[in-house]
C-alpha cells in the first residue's frame, strides 16, 4: 500500500512549479513542498479536473480561480485513494470503474444508432405528416406559382383551349372521386421535348410535350396525371421541406463541432435521407394514384403501359443505384402497381371515346412529328 505520492504543486500565481510529496491522510490531503511548506486541503474542497482517462495525469484543484493545482503523474494514486479512503474518494474518478464506463459507452453508442434509425425511418416522416396540414394552402399556392413561372414560362405554354379542356376533363373525372379539396387545379402543357411531368404545390401540374408525345392513349396520360395529382393532394413538396428542415435540425443536434471533412459527410447523409423520403413520396403517389384511377373507372393498364415506356427509355439501372435515387426503380413500381390491380375487381370504361388521342396530342403548335431525342 503506497502512502506517499510525488507530484508538483502550482500556486495559481506564478508558473513556477514546486515538487511535492502528497499524503492521503484521514482528514485532509497533505502536501509537503520541497521548500518545507506544508499545505492541507480538506477532501470536500478538492476538484478533480483531469485523470479520468488512461494516460492522463491526475489534476486536483483547490480554491477559487485562479486555483491552486496539484498534478500527480502516477495514475495509481486514484486507485489507492479509493482503497484507503473510500468515503472521501466518492467524488473522485475511480479507475476500477473504467470497464463499467466502457460498457456504458457501448450502450450509449447502440442507443444512439437506434435513435438515429428511428428518427430516419419513422420520426421525421411522421413529424412532417403531422406538421404539413398546418402549412397554409395560400403559401403553397404562392410557392407553386413561382415554380410554374420558372419551368413553364407563359410563351412556351400550349394553350389550345379545346384540346386543353379534354385533358382538364380527365383531371376533373378523377378529382370527382376525392371529395372536397382545398386546391384549384391547373394544367400547363409546355412546348419542350423533355420526357417529364411535375406537380408544383398548390394545384399546378406541368406536362412537357415530350411526355405527351409518348402516350398512346388517354388512359396513359390519366395514369401520369393521377400520380401528379396525388403529389399535390398529399402535399409532398411541403412535406419534403419539413423533412429537410427536421433532418437539418437533427444533424445540428448530433454534431457539435462541424468542420471540414465532417460537413461533407453530413451533406451526404442528408442527401441520402432526402432521397429516401422522396422515394417514399413517389411510391405513395403511385399507390394513391392507382386507387384514384380505379375509383374513377379508368383502365389502370394505361398507367402500367406508361411506366413500361419509361422503363424502355431509361434502360436498365443497377440495383445498387436504387438506394441513391430520388425515384424507386421503375421495374419495382410496375410490379407493385400490378399487384395492387390484381387485388381489385373494379371495371373500367373507355376514356374520351369520341376523340382521337392523336389529335389531342397536337395541342402544341410546332408539333410536326413525335420527337425522338
Amino acid at each position, binding site marked *: 500500500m503506497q502512502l506517499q505520492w510525488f507530484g508538483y504543486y502550482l500556486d495559481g500565481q*506564478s508558473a513556477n512549479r514546486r515538487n511535492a*510529496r502528497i499524503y492521503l491522510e484521514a482528514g485532509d490531503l497533505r502536501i509537503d513542498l520541497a521548500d518545507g511548506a506544508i499545505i492541507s486541503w480538506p477532501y470536500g474542497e478538492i476538484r478533480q479536473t483531469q485523470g479520468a482517462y488512461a*494516460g492522463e495525469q491526475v489534476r486536483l484543484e483547490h480554491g477559487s480561480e485562479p486555483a491552486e493545482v496539484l498534478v500527480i503523474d502516477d495514475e495509481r494514486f486514484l486507485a489507492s485513494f479509493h482503497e484507503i479512503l473510500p468515503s472521501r474518494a466518492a467524488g473522485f474518478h475511480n479507475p476500477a470503474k473504467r470497464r463499467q464506463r466502457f460498457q456504458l459507452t457501448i450502450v*450509449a453508442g447502440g442507443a444512439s444508432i437506434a*435513435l438515429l434509425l428511428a428518427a430516419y425511418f419513422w420520426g421525421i416522416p411522421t413529424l412532417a405528416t403531422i406538421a404539413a396540414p398546418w402549412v397554409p394552402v395560400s403559401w403553397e399556392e404562392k410557392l407553386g406559382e413561382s415554380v410554374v413561372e420558372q419551368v413553364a414560362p407563359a410563351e412556351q405554354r400550349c394553350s389550345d383551349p379545346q384540346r386543353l379542356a379534354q385533358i382538364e376533363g380527365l383531371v376533373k373525372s378523377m378529382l370527382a372521386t376525392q371529395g372536397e379539396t382545398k386546391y384549384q387545379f391547373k394544367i400547363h402543357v409546355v412546348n419542350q421535348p423533355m420526357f417529364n411531368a411535375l406537380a408544383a404545390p398548390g394545384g399546378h401540374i406541368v406536362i412537357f410535350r415530350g411526355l405527351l408525345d409518348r402516350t398512346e392513349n388517354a388512359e396513359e396520360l390519366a395514369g401520369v396525371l393521377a400520380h401528379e395529382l396525388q403529389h399535390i393532394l398529399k402535399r409532398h413538396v411541403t412535406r419534403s421541406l419539413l423533412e429537410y428542415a427536421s433532418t437539418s435540425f437533427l444533424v445540428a443536434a448530433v454534431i457539435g463541432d462541424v468542420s471540414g471533412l465532417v460537413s461533407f459527410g453530413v451533406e451526404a447523409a442528408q442527401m441520402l435521407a432526402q432521397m429516401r423520403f422522396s422515394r417514399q413520396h413517389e411510391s405513395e403517389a403511385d399507390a394513391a394514384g392507382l386507387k384514384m384511377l380505379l375509383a374513377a373507372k379508368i383502365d389502370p393498364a394505361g398507367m402500367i403501359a406508361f411506366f413500361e415506356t419509361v422503363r424502355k427509355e431509361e434502360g436498365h439501372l443497377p440495383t445498387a443505384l436504387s438506394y441513391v435515387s430520388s425515384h424507386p426503380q421503375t421495374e419495382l413500381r410496375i410490379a407493385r402497381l400490378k399487384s395492387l390491380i390484381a387485388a381489385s375487381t373494379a371495371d373500367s370504361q373507355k376514356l374520351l371515346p369520341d376523340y382521337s388521342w392523336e389529335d389531342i396530342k397536337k395541342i402544341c403548335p410546332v408539333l410536326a412529328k413525335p420527337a425522338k431525342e
Partner: protein
Amino acid sequence: MAAEVDILAQHLDVPVGSTYPIHFHGRGGSLFGIQIVNLFLGLITLGVYSFWGRVKVRSYMASQTEFSGDRFAYHGTGRELFIGWLKALLLFGIPLFVLVILQIIVGMESELFNLLQILIYIVVGFFIPVAMVNARRYRLSRMSWRGIRFSFRGGVREFIAIYLKGWLLTAVSLGFYYPFWQNRRQMFMISDSHFGNQKFAFDGRGRDLFLSFVLHVLLSLPTFFLCWIWYWARVQRYYAEHTSFQAARFRSTVSGGGVFALWFGNAVLFLLTLGLGWSWITVRNMRYYTSCLSMVGALDVAGVMQEVQPATATGEGLSGFLDLDFDLG
C-alpha cells in the same frame, strides 16, 4: 529531499538555445468514447447537451497536449458556451433571420430586395470579425499551462477595421493584397495574446510571403489547386518562426508533403469508416501538427505571473456591446 531538489533543478536551469517540444498523447479510442456519449446525450436533449459535450472534448484535447513536460488545461464550461451561443443568436442570428424572411416576403422583383441583401452583407460582414475576436478571447482565457491562464486583449473595433479594410483592399487589388491581409490578421491575433503577465510577439511581414503567393496563383491551374497545400504549410512555418515569447521562437516543420499525406490518409480513413473514424482523424491531425511544432531559445517560465483578465466583458457602449465572450467553434 535531495532527490526532489535535483528534479526541480532540471526544470529551472534551462540553457539558452534549448528546444522545447510539444507532444500530443491523446488516443482515438478515448476520444471516440467521449464523442459517442456526447452523441447520445446530444440526441436525447435535442442538441442542448452539445455545449457540454464540446467542453469534454476540449478538456481531453488540452490535457493530452504537453509542452515542455507540462500538460495544458481547459477551463471552459458548457453553461458559458450555451450563454455565448444565445448571445450570438440574439445579436446576429435573429436580425439575420428577420432580414431573410423580409426578403422572402417582398420577393425578388421588389427594389427592397437588393437593399435587404446589402443589409445582410453588412450584418455578416460585422459578424465574422466580431466572432473571430470573441472566440479567440474566450478560448485563450479558458486555457492554462502550469496553472497560468492565457489571455487575448485585442479590441473588437480594431479588428473590425483591420478585417473590413483588408477585405476591401483584397477585392480592389484582385486578390493580390491577400497575403498582406492574412499577415495583418495574424499579427493582431498573436501580438495581443498573453501568457500570464507576458506577451507573445509577432514580427512577420506580408511582403515576405507575397512572391510565394503569386507563384502559387500561377501554379493553381497546372496543379489542380493542390499547390495551395504547400502554400498553406509554408505560411504555417513562416508564422511559427515569427512568433516569439520571451527569448524563444516557435519553429514548425509542417511540410506540404506531410500535410498532403495526412489529409489523404484522413480522407481514406473517413471513407472506409463512413465517418465513424472522425475521432482518429482529429487525433492524427493533432499529433502531426504538435509533433511539427516546438519552441527554440531561452524561456524563463518560472518568472511568469498570473494576471487574471475580467472573464466576461459586458460593459457599456458599442465596443462593450460587441465584447460578447462567445465562442461558436
